[in-house]
């Protein structure tokens, strides 16, 4: 199939957007939209290539679906030419520490990129970091999500598909909306602890290394013919080290326990929603 290669003006794109929004678009409009989407191809490829160099595993969305474009035009006061997520990709990382690291990489790789951090100010519960990189004047959206943020987003999206399309924007059945709100908050709380844990664990690991070095150094000293009071002093310091280590270890265990408790609360919620879904299905049959 041959595509039109003529340059399309911003005005033509926005008029196309108006027709899409109004539902009056023709087959030639779909072809024009396709041409517009393809114009993001090189920018998209450059972004994905850069992410792969950072050992990220992006899933690219070569271009936004027509349906998603139409919905966004109807939902927001935005022109088609202003849409920044025509092309984009998604990177899911294991946890919030990796997310921060990956976002820092992207800030370096795409200086001047806009960073939309929805973690502290979620959009209807949706939490993630979006980066809009501009490549030769074309925006490409990079969604960086932790595995938990992604899990939440997937559940929100899927339930919008099959239960109620307004769920993604705060609507839908009370039970489901309540579940999404609370689970988003609890993922946020969990990730806050996760971030704190990484600091405590790093400090603990540094302490373990320092302790080992101190033990090795003092073992050599103790082999020398030291006066009794020096030996006592070294043994005292070793004892103090051991106590510090035990306290730090306990702190790490406590914080991990807190993470387990937070996660268990979420698991209870998930189980409740499985029962709720089954009940809903039973009522429909």
């Amino acid at each position, binding site marked *: 199939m041959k595509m039109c290669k003529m340059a399309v003006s911003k005005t033509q794109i926005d008029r196309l957007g108006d027709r899409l929004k109004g539902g009056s678009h023709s087959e030639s409009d779909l072809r024009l939209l396709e041409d517009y989407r*393809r114009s993001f191809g090189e920018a998209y490829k450059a972004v994905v290539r850069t992410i792969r160099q950072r050992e990220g595993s992006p*899933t*690219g969305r070569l271009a936004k679906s027509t349906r*998603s474009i139409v919905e966004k035009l109807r939902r927001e006061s935005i022109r088609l030419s202003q849409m920044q997520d025509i092309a984009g990709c998604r990177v899911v990382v*294991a946890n919030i520490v990796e997310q921060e690291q990956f976002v820092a990489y992207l800030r370096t790789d795409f200086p001047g990129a806009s960073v939309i951090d929805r973690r502290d100010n979620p959009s209807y519960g949706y939490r993630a970091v979006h980066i809009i990189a501009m490549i030769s004047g074309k925006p490409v959206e990079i969604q960086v999500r*932790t595995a938990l943020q992604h*899990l939440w987003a997937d559940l929100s999206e899927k339930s919008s598909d099959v239960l109620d399309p307004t769920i993604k924007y705060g609507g839908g059945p009370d039970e489901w909306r309540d579940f999404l709100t609370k689970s988003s908050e609890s993922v946020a709380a969990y990730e806050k602890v996760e971030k704190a*844990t990484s600091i405590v664990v790093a400090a603990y690991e540094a302490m373990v290394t320092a302790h080992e070095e101190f033990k090795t150094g003092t073992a050599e000293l103790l082999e020398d013919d030291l006066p009794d009071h020096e030996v006592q002093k070294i043994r005292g310091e070793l004892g103090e080290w051991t106590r510090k280590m035990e306290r730090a270890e306990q702190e790490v265990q406590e914080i991990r326990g807190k993470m*387990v408790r937070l996660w*268990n609360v979420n698991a209870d919620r998930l189980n409740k929603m499985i029962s709720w879904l089954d009940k809903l299905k039973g009522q429909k049959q």
Partner: protein
Amino acid sequence: MIFLIEYNRSEGRIVTFRDFDDSQRREAEDSRLEIELDLKRKGLDHEVVLLEAASKDALHVTHERYFADLRQMLESAVKTNGTGVPRPTIGDASKCERA
């Protein structure tokens, strides 16, 4: 790899699924357009999307919603807690792993 997905949102199921080599990007884009034109003629409102991922498994990780139903997704989320150990763990270097 490039994946072409035609998805019926209200039924939450895939209608068409095709994969293409990276070198077949143009063919994939043409196929998507053909599906969109066909849907327009039939008056159907499906989501037609082209996604690019290292493998089908990687695609499942980032776009599970196309492949699983809502109950399966909830069950899968609960299973991550099966050991009582919170996931993901700090220091887990693996990328793109489902919690």
